[in-house]
């Protein structure tokens, strides 16, 4: 495979498996993540993709942006479809009718993963199907116009958790999905962000080598839903990691490892002030969010220190 050499002599595959011409918003962090992940997965892959932004913008009939086999599934059964593909390939391999080691990948947004599809995901993880589940978390139902999901962070204003006189926006804390997935004792769980592209590519490569299920949770900056500038996408992803709001870590065979571990966490205001969805928050609420973020980060560091 032809390679482009970039960034500290790391190699990034050259081939694009996501064609340009997709209809994502300008500055979409999600399609950037999908593009880099598709590059890493290569051409021997079958993707099952839940309804959501990625599905809508990459496959408006009669066209597709995909250059690999790809199937659109419903919100609730992405992991079930991926399980079926994997089981089917296994059976055909046993009967000698299939010889390739095709990777099965399921993709979904935070709504498809944390809310609607969590039962089929849990089932597929429990059955230990050999597949990669990638959750593109843009922290709300962005495809239908920014409705809250269980992955929406505390205090964010969405159309169904609007900020106003009686409400400060989302009233619940973001669901810790990687922890729920890790509780299934699967071999590989990771969080990633396209602002750290090489880290994300490494994680996808690791997930491809794992025997059994692997799960990658990708923070996808959404300029439309977060009310941020389209050119701030990369910076926001970076700040999410540096403030500890979305720490980048991996769990290999139950062992935690922090991949981006700043000596001192940046204050969360650096992250929130760039986004319209947090603009209404008064200082005391920001302080309580800061407290929780720091607490969670300390807990995570403790887990990473255990060997």
């Amino acid at each position, binding site marked *: 495979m032809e390679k482009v050499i970039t*960034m500290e002599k790391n190699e990034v595959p050259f081939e694009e498996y996501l064609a340009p011409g997709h*209809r994502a918003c300008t*500055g979409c962090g999600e399609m950037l993540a999908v593009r*880099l992940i598709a590059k890493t997965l290569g051409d021997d892959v079958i993707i099952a993709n839940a309804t959501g932004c990625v599905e809508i913008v990459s496959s408006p009939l*009669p066209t597709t942006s995909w250059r690999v086999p790809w199937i659109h599934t419903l919100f609730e059964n992405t992991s079930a479809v991926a399980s079926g593909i994997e089981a089917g390939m296994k059976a055909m391999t046993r009967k000698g009718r299939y010889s390739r080691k095709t990777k099965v990948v399921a993709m979904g947004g935070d709504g498809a993963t944390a809310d609607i599809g969590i039962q089929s995901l849990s089932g597929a993880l429990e059955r230990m199907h050999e597949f990669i589940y990638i959750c593109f978390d843009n922290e709300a139902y962005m495809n239908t116009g920014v409705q809250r999901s269980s992955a929406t962070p505390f205090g964010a204003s969405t159309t169904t958790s609007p900020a106003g006189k009686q409400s400060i926006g989302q009233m619940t804390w973001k669901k810790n999905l990687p922890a729920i997935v890790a509780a299934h004792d699967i071999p590989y769980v990771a969080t990633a962000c396209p602002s750290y592209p090489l880290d994300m590519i490494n994680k996808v490569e690791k997930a491809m080598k794992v025997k059994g299920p692997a799960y990658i949770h990708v923070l996808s900056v959404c300029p439309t839903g977060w009310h941020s500038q389209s050119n701030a*996408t990369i910076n926001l992803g970076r700040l999410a990691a540096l403030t500890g709001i979305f720490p980048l870590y991996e769990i290999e065979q139950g062992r935690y490892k922090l991949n981006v571990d700043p000596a001192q966490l940046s204050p969360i205001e650096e992250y929130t002030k760039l986004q319209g969805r947090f603009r209404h928050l008064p200082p005391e609420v920001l302080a309580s969010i800061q407290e929780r973020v720091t607490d969670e980060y300390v807990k995570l560091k403790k887990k990473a220190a255990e060997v």
Partner: protein
Amino acid sequence: MKDTTIEIRWHGRGGQGAVTSAELIAMAAIAEGEYAQAFPSFGPERRGAPVLAFNRIDNANPIRARSSVINPDIVAVLDPGLLYITDVVSGLKQNGTLIVNSPKSLVDIKSEFGGPWKLAVVNATAIARELLGVNIVNTTMLGAVVKATGIIKMESLVEPIEERFGARAKRNIDACAKAYKEAEIAEPVAVRARQKREFQVEKWPAWQELLPGCVVIEAGSASQYRTGDWKSQHPESDYSKCIKCGLCYIYCPEGCIVPKLGEEGFFEADMYYCKGCGICAQECPKDVITMVEES
């Protein structure tokens, strides 16, 4: 029964507020006791993509039609760039009205887009930047539309704008009034100005030609879709400072930045796809790339 319906077609970009323009004008018309509709055209297009919104206003009869507007009486263009990528006067009726947001003068616009329709030009972008601080021209353009067509009274717009914008209503009403004052209008001319550019229309298969089960067998066929039309600014590079690190290539959400042909190792964005997000300019460590407004 005499056809008394007046139809408006709005050309805007996703996120620019064309739909809001249509809604506000319909609300104002209803407040004046007329019948009115406002609705957008639906598609998978996102922020920055060319979008359409429509109005029907009738001062005598209820409106039964629910289809999109093909032969408008009035066309309003919210983004100057759209003039050159879509045929905005398509279907415009004889003696209709074309209202354009453009920094160019009325004479210049007339030489390019004059025809058997009334023509109005206003620099709504400049007004919106001055009074609102943002390039969202929906309320500003309403002033020009009202002046050119007299379809509703300016006073009728105040209440819908206050209801929609709350604390920001005052500034929006000021912008609307300023556009009303500044819009320049030219009467129809008999001969249509010669089109300088052919509009490319993508050819997609009809529904009868699709395979059962919505199977698409041509890989990557979306690559014929020109997302480059969405941008309001484009990147320009000064290669003398470039260190060929490839960060722009990595961080491009479109995947449209590719190694430049013929020249060793430099990267260049493909304008056919570039949506002008500005990530490459923001992330370039050597400030090689700057974003330049589309003219």
